[in-house]
């Protein structure tokens, strides 16, 4: 076996240091690679969570937006419906005034209407025991005769103040029919309201559906 000389030691030292340097570089290179992986992993995880946050916010925003729009449509429809009701009430109210004025100016028309009201009441009630006239003016005498022609001589007739018409009672007084112009008016309102609305609203396009 050859003895190790100091010259040999020097070569060994160089080789060993070279190996140590290589190993150190490898350790650091590995650490750098691992560090890059860590950064990449954190970044991907954060990006995924960020996307989730934004998606959740978008969903929540859209839900809130739908609620806001539905509420606006609901309020708009409700308000539009109120306007339609107000408009129709105004038309009917004006029509009622027109009718009252026409009746006060035209007694013949008033008597005809009263006769029609009572005839209708008689048809509805069948047998009449008593008639209570509802009058606005002082025309009882003339009207009594008109009414007697319709209901017959045996029927008791009285008169009191009220909207044009009459209350007809059955002979036993247990059943009665209110044959008043006001009732006819209310019936007409129910019947005409949708027809008139259809006529006027038809020209105004409807609100968006929600």
């Amino acid at each position, binding site marked *: 076996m050859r003895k190790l000389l100091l010259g040999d030691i020097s070569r060994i030292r160089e080789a060993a*240091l070279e190996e140590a340097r290589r190993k150190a570089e490898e350790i650091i290179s590995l650490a750098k690679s691992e560090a890059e992986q860590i950064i990449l992993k954190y*970044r991907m995880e954060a990006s995924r*969570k*960020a996307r989730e946050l934004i998606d959740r916010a978008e969903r929540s925003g859209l839900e809130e937006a739908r609620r806001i729009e539905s509420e606006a449509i609901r309020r708009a429809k409700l308000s539009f419906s109120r306007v339609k009701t107000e408009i129709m009430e105004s038309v009917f109210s004006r029509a009622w005034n027109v009718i009252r004025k026409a009746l006060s100016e035209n007694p013949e028309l008033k008597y005809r209407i009263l006769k029609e009201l009572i005839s209708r009441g008689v048809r509805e009630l069948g047998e009449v025991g008593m008639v209570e006239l509802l009058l606005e003016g002082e025309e009882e005498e003339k009207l009594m005769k008109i009414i007697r022609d319709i209901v017959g001589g045996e029927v008791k007739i009285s008169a009191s103040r009220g909207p044009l018409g009459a209350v007809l009672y059955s002979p036993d007084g247990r059943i009665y029919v209110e044959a008043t112009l006001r009732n006819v008016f209310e019936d007409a309102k129910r019947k005409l309201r949708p027809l008139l609305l259809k006529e006027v609203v038809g020209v105004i396009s409807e609100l968006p559906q929600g």
Partner: protein
Amino acid sequence: MSEVLRELREIDELIRRMEEEARAEAKRILKLAKENAEKERLAILRNAEEEARRVKERIIEEARRRAKSIMSDYLERAERLKEYVRKREPYLIKKVVMEILNIGDVDAETIVRRYFED
């Protein structure tokens, strides 16, 4: 011979120290990487929260704008309806009068016209 052994021990020691230093440096690199990654993660999430808030606000703002437009559209239609009905009022009243008084078109029109003339 003892000189040689001493040299060899020194080499061993040097190699061990170099490896230790490399490991310490690697540890430092990893620690720094984790710190930076965490900082970046927090920054990404902060930005995302801000962006999410903006996205939601933008959507809601747009919905509020549309809601305002719906209400304004309704007001405009309501006004048009009122105006239309105002113009058609005599005709509508005539229809009611015809129905209630059970009279014809001409008679009802006379009654309505007289009312409006007065």
